[in-house]
């Protein structure tokens, strides 16, 4: 009898700010690690903020990565 394979539970996807470990020395920009996303998948990452006066429209930058661990 064939048993249906049991899928491992997916890892919990996370966006982790690792700034405290490796901050950029000049700009203080965060270093971000994405974990738990499916291997070989395109991951779309967006950074979104409002302008300094806090009013819309927001600003956004988006990029797509593949796959695995991504440090930026």
């Amino acid at each position: 009898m064939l048993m249906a394979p049991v899928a491992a539970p997916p890892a919990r996807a996370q966006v982790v700010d690792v700034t405290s470990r490796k901050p950029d020395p000049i700009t203080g920009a965060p270093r971000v690690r994405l974990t738990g996303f499916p291997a070989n998948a395109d991951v779309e990452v967006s950074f979104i903020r409002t302008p300094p006066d806090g009013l819309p429209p927001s600003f956004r930058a988006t990029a797509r990565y593949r796959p695995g661990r991504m440090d930026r």
Partner: protein
Amino acid sequence: MSGDWQAAAPEAPFWSMQPDPSAPVPVSTVVMIQATAQGIRAKAEYRLPEPAPVQIEDVTQFPGAFLVRPASATGRLPLIIVLGGSEGDDHTARGIGPQLAAEGYAVLGFPYYSPDRGRGPAIAGLPSVFAEIPVDRLEEVHRWASTDPRIDVNRIGIWGQSKGGEFAIIAAATYPWLDAVAAIVPSDVVWEGFGSGTIERTGTPSFSLGGKPLPFVRYGVPGRARDSKDTGRAQYPQDVAAALIPIGRFRGLLLVAGGEQDRTWNSAGMSQSITQRRKDSGLPTVSLVFPDAGHALVGGSLEPVDVSRGGTVEGNGAAQKAVWAATRELFRTAWPARRE
């Protein structure tokens, strides 16, 4: 990898941002980071670094001027005079002043030109036409600095950009009391003046010294874009020879930075000219020339870049970071040990 940024730099997602009215609106001090793949979504929030606390006060001796110091400062600090560009007023100084002061300096925002945008100059007492700006006003600043117990008058530098970079280079060639000068997208010559609105050219120089107009280069084709300067330079080589600023006289530390895609003027070529003339005098220069950058090389590295005056998003972003790092290093080298 593809998208708005490709550089492997942590600040790249910040300077590559573009306005997006459809994006959610986080509070202004937080950056929302969203990641999505195959229906899986995760997000985090990054709180932007708090600006270092500074104290800012008006300096009433000079129209529109203000002094910025670290909030915790005591004793005498080196002074950096900030000279903005043709945008006039105090816009540039309000931005860079606190950033420089946070490094441990007193910073004088020193507006010297206030364009008339239809309601007269925003800063009363300043010229609204960029013509024959007296470089000598810096001597008044020097005298004022010598009377302020919070400033070390033996340690003075200048930070200037664009027309302020031209001003800074003239000052460096003139005043031996300057230790260090950062001239961002500067000029190697004195250019013709111009005015607000329709005054495209004045027929007089941008700067004067000792009450006399300085030799200047006339503009060529009409307009204010780069080609008006490039053609002026080509058409009037005798002007260029007379208007070259004698930067080989300056014995202090000098930083210049330019972008090869600068649409305002040839800041890369003029930076290289300054560097060569210093070299001819046996003097070093920190010279940064960026092939993919334009005119906007100054700004917080986590702010979206301005490509309206040339350069690519990534070129300008990388240049902003490099220029800021070199600026910090310049003043740290000039005044290494005695910061109080």
